[in-house]
């Protein structure tokens, strides 16, 4: 029974994680049970930092911007919370691939179809989605939703002769590559449903967060999940933090004031769409979003939303979008006459990371040292 149970866990989640984590064993290195997650954590953090650096650096065509965005993303409140506090390794792994998908979407929708490199624009998207689906199915679901939002926002591009095939090239192979995993996974779900083991309906709105929680800067991991009547008191750090929210605010102000007019064409357009989609995701993670009403429409929708469990799961993508928006602001200041604002914003990011991320990490490490005693 135990073996069967273990098999199921592997069957559902451990695809990528187990492969990477078992590599040292396969290579003949034998680590203790405590060392392996540590090692995996190092690999994951390095991968997240590396992937996000490459993706954001290429998106904004500036290495410094890439480094800042990578630091903001790797040390983002939500990522640290999921990985270090909840120990959701699956979601943590999936989060590493989100910048790849975002970069893929950027290449597909903001790239020039007539340029030579456009033919390979689907590669990052494919790689990212495959990585996500093999890591964490709920994040994959959210990725599908976010991709749909981008497609809806870029409807004109979708009917372009080269864009649509690029998108198909990115989507279909990712599904094909993941079939070995997705088919048994869903088959098992169907069997469980047939046996009456249906995932029970779960109202998620009460688990949404408030605006204050979303923008919390000095986090410490509290003893309770946020939401409902417990408010934000001693709640877990489910949010994107002040710096990313401020970046969204600055971006919207620049947009509102007409500063983007005639600047940077497709890149700005994509940044605007990313900001709007990111904003939608942030609103959806809050308890003001009418999840209960949407769930009341149809049992199938209710079940689908129940699978989300906590609306703040959308914050993984929310963080990725907001880091991208931060990068867009940096790019605007880089190209504007007031270049000192670029460095001011970069300094704000460093200060934000130092005062928020490290504050949370300090707490996490103190808890871990307590546990190890």
């Amino acid at each position, binding site marked *: 029974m135990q073996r069967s149970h273990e098999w199921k866990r592997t069957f559902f989640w451990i695809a990528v994680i187990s492969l990477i984590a078992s590599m040292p064993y396969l290579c003949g290195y034998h680590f203790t049970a405590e060392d392996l997650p540590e090692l995996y954590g190092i690999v994951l953090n390095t991968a997240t930092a590396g992937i996000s650096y490459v993706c954001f650096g290429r998106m904004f065509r500036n290495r410094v911007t890439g480094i800042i965005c990578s630091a903001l993303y790797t040390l983002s409140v939500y990522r640290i919370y999921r990985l270090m506090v909840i120990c959701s390794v699956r979601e943590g792994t999936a989060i590493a691939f989100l910048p790849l998908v975002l970069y893929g979407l950027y290449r597909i929708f903001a790239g020039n179809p007539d340029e030579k490199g456009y033919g390979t624009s689907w590669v990052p998207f494919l790689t990212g989605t495959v990585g996500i689906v093999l890591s964490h199915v709920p994040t994959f679901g959210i990725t599908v939703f976010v991709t749909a939002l981008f497609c809806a926002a870029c409807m004109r591009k979708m009917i372009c002769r080269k864009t649509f095939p690029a998108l198909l090239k990115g989507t279909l192979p990712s599904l094909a590559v993941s079939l070995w995993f997705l088919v048994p996974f869903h088959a098992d779900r169907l069997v469980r449903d047939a046996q009456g083991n249906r995932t029970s309906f779960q*109202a998620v*709105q*009460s688990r*949404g967060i*408030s*605006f*204050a*929680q979303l*923008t*919390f*800067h*000095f986090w*410490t991991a*509290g003893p309770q999940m946020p939401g409902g*009547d*417990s*408010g*934000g*008191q*001693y*709640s877990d750090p489910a949010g994107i933090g*002040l710096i990313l929210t*401020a970046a969204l*605010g600055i971006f919207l*102000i620049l947009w*509102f*004031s*007409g500063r983007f007019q005639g600047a940077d064409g497709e890149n700005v357009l994509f940044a605007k769409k990313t900001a709007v989609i990111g904003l939608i995701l942030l609103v959806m993670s809050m*308890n*003001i979003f*009418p*999840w*209960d*009403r949407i769930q*009341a429409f149809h049992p199938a929708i209710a079940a689908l939303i129940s699978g989300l469990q906590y609306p703040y799961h959308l914050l993984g993508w929310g963080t990725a979008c907001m880091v991208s928006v931060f990068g867009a602001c940096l790019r605007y200041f880089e190209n504007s006459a007031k270049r000192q604002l670029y460095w001011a914003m970069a300094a704000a990011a460093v*200060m934000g990371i130092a*005062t928020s991320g490290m504050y949370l990490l300090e707490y996490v490490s103190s808890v871990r040292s307590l546990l190890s005693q």
Partner: protein
Amino acid sequence: MRKEESGKKRYDYLKLLFIVEAVLILALLPGCFRREKLVYSSGGSEISERVERTEGQGRFCSERFALTPGVYQVRIWTELSDEQHIQAQISCDQAGFKALKNNVVPVLPGNDYQDFEVYVSDRISAAYVQCDFSGTDSGGLVRLEVWKTNMGSRKLLLIMAALFMALDFLVIFRRRILEGKVSEKRQIVFWGLAAGVLTAYFPYLTDYFVSGYDVFFHLSRISYLADALKQGASLPVRIEGTWLYGHGYASSAFYGDLFLFVPALLQLAGFSVMGSYKIFLLLVTAATAYIAWFSFQKCVKNEYAALFGSLVYLLSPYRFYNVYNRAAVGEYLAMIFLPLVCCGVYLLYTEDPASEEYRKYKWYVVWGMSGVLQSHLISTEMTALLLLLFCAVFIGKTLRRQTFRQLFEVTGLVLLINAWFWLPMLYMLKCDTYQIQEITEADMQFTGLLFGNFFYWVPYAGQRYIAKNEVWVGAGAVLLLLFYALWRYRRKEKDIVCEVSAVFSALMLVMSTAYFPWNTIMKIPGIGYIAASLQFPWRWMSPGTLFLALLAVFLSRRVMEDGGMTARAGMGIAAAVIMISAVYHVNSIAREAVPVYLYNEGAMGTANVGGGEYVLSETKISELRYHKPVAEEGLLWADYEKEGTSVTVTLENRTQEVRYIEIPLTGYKGYGVTASGSEAGLPSVSGERGAHGDLRLEVPAQYQGTVKISYQGFALFRVAEAVSLCSLAAAAGMRFCRKRKV
């Protein structure tokens, strides 16, 4: 040509937007006048049949009924014996998140009628009224009804109107930006202030609120003011009748409530107790930011320096402490107007008295001082003392003919415009004895700050109320002072405003400490009484914060104008510390705040009078209960009706002697009696009060008739109100005439 066309198109687009908004508002308007609709009612045997009795307790759950979005009112009639009480609420079987909002409302013995609002934001198919009895006897519950009111429509209309106004503002603002009519500086000021307001309001960006130390007193002030308005009390309201189990409390007579009309009217429009307070606080925060910026801008004539100063003021730890930890509504309201007073005084002392503009500057002080007076008496005392000190320090300028005349006019105008408030208050204080006059602070000094408090890097107290020693001015502000000291040491030329701000802020900080000899000062006859009335030395941090902000304003201007890289870096560090400290502070409040969901005033109780300062000295609050009139033998009463501070009762004195009846109203002087005639003479308010200070009526022998008792005040009150109205009219008239001349 193209530009003109596009301009026309934009104009048409705006026009279309206004038309759509107007149509929507008009469509919502009829709902505001819709009649109330009975949703559910139950009474008599229906109630007792549905009561479940378990373990010595009874619970009544009504039949299920559907609720659509809106504001409902539950009305409960009871006849409870002394040991009984009921806890009532509306519950439901299943509903969306926060679709049904109401609190458990206690109905106490002696209170025959209780109502409370229920806020429904989504359709609920099976709601029910639940009443929990203190025993198994359900006989005390006579009848209950659930009505759908038109408050939901009013609330919706107000929300839509506010949203449309915000939308219109943004659309027009954007248009003006794109047309180049708003300078970049002004844009940065606008967004900077908006960010400051959001940061300062951060702990309330939730669906609950933070329970500060005095919050229930101030929420009661707001709710009972709304009640008084609903009951048709004459303006200005002096006594609200809901306080203290319906006895009434003269809170408004002694504690200015002019600005509380905003949340009270919001409550009347259909917002919950918590909702109206949160909106009010948002408005207060925005007003603080804007008035501070406006005042500093008038003084310094530099947008960025004024923005920096207003943020230092808005995000000061002491203001946060007043707002969230103490919920000191009066003090944080007064803090809105302090910069305006400061601005007026600055202009009167620095501008050329011969200029035409000079006579206008007094108005800043007049409106500022009036705002402070209408908000908080202790802040008024402190401001007046500081103004006196300032006038004495700059005696040379004070005695300039024009300046002295303006200061004299300021004093007169403030007194005249606010006569309706302070004159009746002083009169009431003189003609009666209240508990505030019996409170003596033996040791005020021990609540002062310690030296270490000034160096707290980041304020951390969550929402805790700290009575002593743990209030901060913030390390950023102290850093600013140190930076100025260094700057002054390095530079030879002095900036007199920086100098004065620094000295006054340092003085205020010293006065707020435990090292300042407050206890000795309290022993000095006359002065001691004024000093004791301040209660806590750290209240001086309120003007202290203002002077620090003023220092920030003028110092930043100097640094911007002629400071080197080092000076700019130093200033930047101080600014960064102030901002980070503020973010940390609001974060810690939000994180530690116990969420409070308060929708109904009934859930608060009526005895949240704090120290009961304005209760009559003979009244013991703990003895107060809801009760009916208490008459002496031979005096019969009937048809008793009470609405706020107005009581109607039919009396019959069957004896040949004067008889007394005690009415459940606090016996403040100023109550009047109107009685229908009887040859035997008419009842009047007795000079002696009844038990626990109740109002006592003297009923002549053989009297029979209906008596109406209500609070009327004194003739002096009417005179004071007339003086205020005439002064305001004269001020408005003078301004109008001057404008026409121009």
